[in-house]
């Protein structure tokens, strides 16, 4: 310090915090998907070239590079293609551990997405399990995946491995 009574030592670190504000838009196709969630349904899009159905669709076919324009309403049920049991606590965790994170292939879709699985003990989850979405109350539906509370077993027999092996 200027008076010579330094106890701080030399500077070795510099804090350079950055904060930036953006206006995010998910685009046309993902907005449709999110608006579908607001109505309590899963909306996907089919590629006119390869016929694959994407949910959520980002507006183009990642295989063919063409715009996806045909909207497809998908079922409320699907198949667990793979899963993991989360036992590790982390900052911001909203769900009590252990819980199951599953990749779910909705009926009619060619792309799985990640969902929370509940109403089943963690040691009974298995690949091929048939599950259904449980939605929040109608008044609480919003254009967000938060409208899906979780998935749970729907009671149907497990799907045959051949029906989902392409989606692992």
């Amino acid at each position, binding site marked *: 310090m200027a008076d010579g009574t330094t106890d701080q030592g030399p500077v070795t670190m510099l804090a350079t915090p950055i904060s930036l504000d953006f206006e*995010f*838009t998910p*685009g046309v196709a993902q907005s449709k998907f999110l608006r579908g969630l607001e109505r309590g349904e899963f909306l996907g899009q089919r590629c006119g070239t390869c016929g694959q159905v994407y949910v959520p669709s980002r507006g*183009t076919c*990642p295989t063919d590079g063409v715009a996806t324009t045909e909207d497809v309403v998908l079922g409320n049920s699907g198949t667990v293609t793979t899963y993991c049991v989360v036992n590790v606590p982390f900052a911001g965790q909203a769900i009590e551990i252990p819980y199951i994170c599953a990749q779910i292939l909705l009926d009619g879709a060619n792309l799985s997405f990640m969902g929370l699985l509940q109403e089943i003990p963690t040691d009974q989850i298995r690949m091929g399990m048939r599950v259904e979405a449980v939605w929040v109350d109608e008044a609480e539906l919003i254009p967000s995946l938060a409208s899906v509370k979780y998935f749970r077993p729907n009671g149907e027999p497990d799907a045959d491995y051949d029906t989902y092996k392409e989606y692992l």
Partner: protein
Amino acid sequence: MSAAGRTVRPVSIASFAQSQNVRKDNERNEAEGLQPVIAEVFANVGITKDDVDFICSGSTDYLIGGPFSFVMALDAVGVWPPRAESHVEMDGAWALYEAWVLFQEGEIDAALVYAFGRSSLGDLNEILTLQLDPYYEAPLWPDIVSLNALQARAMIDAGKATEADFAAIASRSRRDALSNPKAQVRHDVAPDVLLEDDYVVAPLRRHALPPITDGAAAIVLAAGDKALQWSERPVWITGFDHRMETHSLGARDLTVSPSTAKAAEVAGVADGNVDIAEIHAPFAHQELIIAEALGLDDSVAVNPSGGPLAANPLMSAGLIRIGEAASRIRAGQADRAVAHATSGPCLQQNLVCVLEGA
């Protein structure tokens, strides 16, 4: 590649496409905005993604404020089965350079290069601060307009330019843009009228600044038989180089561009007559610095497309310079052209590409 940076293996700009340049694309995500451009650049020459050996893109995640936006953007191309692909966190002109190097090494015969960026999503005055020295400059949050005003003042103080020169460049650029349907700012306003603009940051008035632009662009490169099949009048890259200067603004002479001069020397700009130059000078005063460094005389038509003062889509504005220059050669309006791209604050990094008709 020869030591001098001149082309050993000729590479052709086979096709060029760009989006409509707009102040704000309020609807589409990156892939949705890019997909029609990719489709057009392939359709121009009747090919598909399966006809190119390599894909390279230029973009920056800071514009969208999310990670790996270049991966998402690949959905606009279609990358299944897996493709050879790369990305630079730079203007697409540098992505084109990376592809060109692979051509020189004989690795590829055709490539897709594209770039995209939406400048409208955040505050560019803050976002572009992140390209500065993170210890001494960025913590003060100097905005890009202020930094360029320092450069413009240095030009004026050195007797190299006047505010009237900046207005003349802005006026000419936006008048030329009247013939460019893709441009964003197109009008015929005389320089003395522009000089009535307020200062944004003195000595830069409103007209000396580039517009804020959302846009995307793409180019197909080809060599050998493909170059000849895909274009009746191939446009060849005959020289290509890029150079950079120190990160420390205060250690540079901001009135000159030694990196551009060096790149121009290596690319062989002076080896022939230059008919047109497409210069990536987002701020009006920068055109004077780059024109001098390229060694251009008054006979050269600068930015006949309107240049970045008419449309400045970040990350693709440099790639567009190459595409615009090539388009004029292909149309028979020029035989030899120079395209320039820049990156970083106050022309820190510069790329020079020499193009010639068959």
